[in-house]
């Protein structure tokens, strides 16, 4: 109890300094949580685009980016006829710009594609899709920012297209994209006869391994991966996730430095107290325990406040009109745990030098100095 009071006393003695330290950790935690959650959400959304209602993705091997992958139409047609396959859908990805909108994702798909089938058709008819090469379907957000309605003509990149329909999907990227008939997209992006990936649904999920082997044998240039495998191995996803953790880590490091600074000040201002504890027989471990306990409490309080701020920030971002659909407010439990643990480790690590300094305080000299 007295030990705990010794820890708390100093925190309460310098309330403003304690609050600043807690705020430093809190904002670091909030930043890390927000950045990691948003980027993971973005990755999940992109992964969702790839998988749609399929279970496997077939793409060209040895390409750094799926936009560069070429899967021949003929291969997709063959896959679709394999007995174990329920359906195989080609998807061609392309990126274009429009006035005021530097990036619009284009999806070249067949009428049977899951995105088209499962979307909510806000206006226009699904039955008309791919009947006219110059008619495209806009995601809801795209229609909003292009201020386009069904029947109107819009400019996408260097081309002009008729708006056939407007759809809403559960995926922010798809809502902010444009759906073209596959052949239209192939012509538009000069990729005749190929798609970026094929999404494949098997009749029996257990046949995944057999399907992968069959693809490898039949099409040596192509790779088939289950959605989960793909999400874990795709280098772009790994880079994005690593970037998120790195940015968050930097934020946390700054918070840790704040704690270190606070704890050094704390040790300097309580040299006399440490000397008195020394005179009363406190061991190195006990002295260090007080300093580390102090920083641990600051870190925990900061982490708790940071979680609240971060969750609120994510929720707020979800309702920002410009980001509508792009922010996935689902915060994963392991991310929260990881952020809190990292905050505590950083905070306590920041107190290591102050604790080391404290245990080197020589009682007599400290009392003389005072």
């Amino acid at each position, binding site marked *: 109890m*007295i*030990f705990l*009071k*010794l820890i708390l*006393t100093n925190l309460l*003695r310098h309330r403003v300094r304690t609050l600043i330290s807690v705020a430093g950790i809190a904002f670091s935690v909030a930043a890390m949580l927000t950045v990691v959650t948003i980027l993971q959400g973005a990755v999940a959304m992109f992964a969702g685009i790839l998988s749609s209602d399929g279970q496997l993705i077939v793409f060209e091997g040895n390409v750094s980016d799926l936009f560069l992958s070429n899967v021949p139409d003929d291969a997709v047609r063959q896959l679709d006829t394999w007995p174990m396959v329920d359906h195989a859908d080609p998807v061609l990805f392309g990126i274009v710009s429009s006035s005021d909108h530097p990036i619009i994702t284009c999806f070249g798909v067949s009428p049977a594609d899951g995105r088209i089938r499962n979307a909510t058709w806000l206006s226009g008819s699904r039955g008309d899709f791919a009947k006219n090469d110059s008619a495209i379907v806009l995601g809801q957000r795209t229609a909003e920012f292009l201020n386009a309605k069904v029947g109107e003509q819009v400019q996408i990149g260097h081309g002009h297209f008729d708006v056939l329909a407007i759809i809403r999907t559960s995926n922010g990227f798809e809502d902010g994209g444009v759906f073209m008939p596959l052949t239209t997209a192939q012509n538009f992006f000069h990729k005749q006869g190929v798609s970026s990936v094929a999404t494949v649904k098997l009749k029996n999920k257990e046949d995944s391994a057999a399907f992968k082997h069959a693809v490898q044998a039949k099409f040596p240039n192509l790779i088939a991966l289950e959605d989960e495998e793909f999400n874990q191995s795709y280098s772009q996803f790994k880079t994005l996730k690593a970037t998120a953790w790195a940015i968050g880590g930097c934020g946390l490091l700054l918070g840790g430095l704040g704690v270190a600074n606070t704890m050094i000040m704390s040790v300097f201002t309580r040299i006399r*107290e440490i*000397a*008195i*504890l020394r*005179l*009363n*027989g*406190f*061991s190195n471990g*006990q002295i260090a325990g007080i300093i580390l306990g102090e920083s641990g409490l600051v870190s925990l309080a900061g982490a708790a406040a940071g979680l609240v701020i971060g969750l609120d920030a994510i929720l707020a971002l979800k309702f920002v009109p410009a980001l509508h659909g792009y922010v996935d407010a689902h915060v994963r439990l392991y991310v929260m745990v990881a952020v809190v643990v990292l905050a505590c480790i950083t905070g306590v690590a920041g107190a290591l030098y102050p604790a080391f300094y404290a245990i080197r305080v020589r*009682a*007599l000299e400290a*009392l003389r100095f005072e």
Partner: protein
Amino acid sequence: MNDAAEYSSPAQLAVIQAADVWKSYDNGSIKVLNGIHFGAHAGQTVALCGPSGCGKSTLLHLVGGLDTPDRGSISVNGAPLRFGSGSLRLLRHEVGFVFQLHNLIPDLTLEENCLLPTVAAGTNRRDARERFMQLAERTGLAHRLDQPIQKLSGGERQRTALCRALMNRPRILLADEPTGSLDERASEQFFELLLELVEIEGITFAMATHDRALAVRCDRLVEMRDGRVYETAKA
């Protein structure tokens, strides 16, 4: 006069024994102790007197393991002190200190301050509390247990410091000008209490003081000058 021989008799246990102890500061430019010999038996009260800078406090600090001698050996309870080792921390539980300034932690109550040595020693909380109540009764502090240090008088603070010094039942009590911050009356009362407790607890007591009136009440009066023990006088 060198008093080491007098206290090396096997018939009487030398609780404190310092032999040929040297201490200087500022790379040897300030010589404080010059080959001093000093000893004290179990239960003995010793007053170290002498002018400022003669080495009284330094000798007490060395015996208490608060400072390191340049040369020489110091034994406490028959065991030589090994400076820089963990044994010095254990020494803190065997040696109690009372300083001129009370050195209490202002944010803790009287009771919490007194319990600090037991926290350090890992004493059972109930035993610690029992011991504290016993000492608080004896030192007349029982009615002030929850008081913050700021609300205590100078005499009460010094009694609190004495209470704290005795919490771990030390075999030795060292006091550096323990009445230096008190007025004459408070000083007299405090010293009376201190001697009474030393006798009840049966501990060895060594004190550095300028106050000869108090010093003569100890079993021995050791005169120090220029870092040496010049004479030993019976009070």
